[in-house]
């Protein structure tokens, strides 16, 4: 009887047992806290995802371009292919999305386009061609250091895009966006003996559909500019010569793949 009472007393005052009891109590509190946090996480998951979605503000666009280049009299320079690259960043104009899914932004970024042109189309001419003179050709058989005909004809434009865009997030990570950009660009139409350089103010508008970080889009652009032939003015013997200027029209459709980034 005495021994039973002693054991009971020891068990009541044993510090180890008391600690174990404390641990159990703490564990119970932690577990209840974790479960409470999990519940709150599940509740807050949607806003976090939404926040991540709107954080993807940078976009890289790589596209295939069908560019119709025309001179002043409407003649089209035949195109082989065209490519375009742009790096545009959205600056949201308001913090909270309208109706929790729509935001307007100011866009800014650079824009580069290149088009390879094919100017040497053949036809069925059968008259005299090539060098038909009787004099011997100069050293090297008249071959130039650079074969000008092999250089081909190229069109470049580099600009800085400024504009507005609207982005809609209907469900999950789906993004539907539309934009209109004004792109003041420097353009060069290079072709063997001529290098026409000028200012081409592009007006570009497009739309894109993306999910997460990848998407597809289409863009249309139009510009008109006056170009100056630099090579002609360099070749001229007089400093007072006036370089010829010519009008150039550019209208293109671009299909592109877009990659979106953000912190």
């Amino acid at each position, binding site marked *: 009887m005495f021994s039973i009472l002693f054991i009971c007393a020891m068990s009541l005052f044993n510090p180890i047992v008391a600690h174990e009891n404390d641990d159990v109590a703490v564990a119970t509190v932690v577990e209840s806290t974790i479960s409470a946090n999990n519940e709150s996480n599940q509740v807050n998951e949607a806003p976090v995802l939404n926040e991540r979605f709107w954080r993807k503000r940078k976009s890289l666009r790589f596209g295939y371009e069908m560019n119709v280049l025309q001179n002043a009299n409407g003649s089209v320079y035949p195109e082989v292919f065209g490519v375009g690259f742009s790096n545009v960043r959205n600056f949201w104009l308001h913090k909270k999305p309208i109706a929790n899914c729509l935001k307007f932004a100011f866009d800014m970024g650079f824009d580069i386009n290149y088009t390879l042109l094919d100017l040497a189309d053949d036809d069925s001419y059968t008259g005299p*061609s090539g060098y038909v003179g009787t004099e011997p050709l100069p050293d090297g058989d008249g071959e130039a250091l650079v074969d000008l005909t092999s250089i081909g004809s190229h069109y470049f434009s580099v600009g800085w895009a400024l504009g507005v865009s609207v982005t809609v997030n209907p469900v999950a990570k789906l993004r539907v966006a539309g934009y209109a950009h004004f792109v003041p660009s420097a353009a060069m139409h290079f072709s063997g003996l001529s290098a026409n350089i000028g200012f081409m103010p592009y007006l570009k508008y497009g739309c894109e559909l993306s999910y997460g970080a990848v998407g597809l889009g289409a863009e249309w652009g139009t510009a008109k500019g006056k170009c100056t032939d630099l090579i002609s003015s360099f070749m*001229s013997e007089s400093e007072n010569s006036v370089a010829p200027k010519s009008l150039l029209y550019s209208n293109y459709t671009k299909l592109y793949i877009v990659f979106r980034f953000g912190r």
Partner: protein
Amino acid sequence: MKTCKIFTLVFAVVICTMTSCFRPDGTATDDTGNKLIGYWELVHILEETQRYDIYENGEAGTPYFNTNSYDIACNDGRKEWCIVRFTESTMSIVATDDPELVAIIDLPVPYTFDGKKLVSAFINLDFSESFAEVKFRNENSMEFYILDEGDIYNEESGKPEAHEKYQSWTTYRRVTNKN
């Protein structure tokens, strides 16, 4: 929030105005009827040069005139004969008897033609704006008129020492021997 909305509205208006101001015409239209397209052989040149010296006191010296008019034929010793091809948007030298032009045979060079003025890298003047005025005499004959006029400056003093006016009328005949 209110400021943000006002800013958005103002910005949208500014962008719309800006883009509408710079909106290009879209596409060019060819209302000139490009009669240049085809192959043309250079057949005649008429050229006229006028020149007079300018003295230090600003007075002009006695003018000097020189006029040349001659027909051009292949291998006539002048090395000016050529056949030029015009496509819708480019021109190129198809045949020549000048060995120095071998490197640019068949090199397509863009040109613009508004029905009167022809602008191309092949037309490269020393003083005046580089273009040729084109006159069609009939379907198979045309004339390029070139005017190049200006002062020649002394390299050391930087003052004009002479004045030169060069004009040329080159006649081309359409080559029809193609299939």
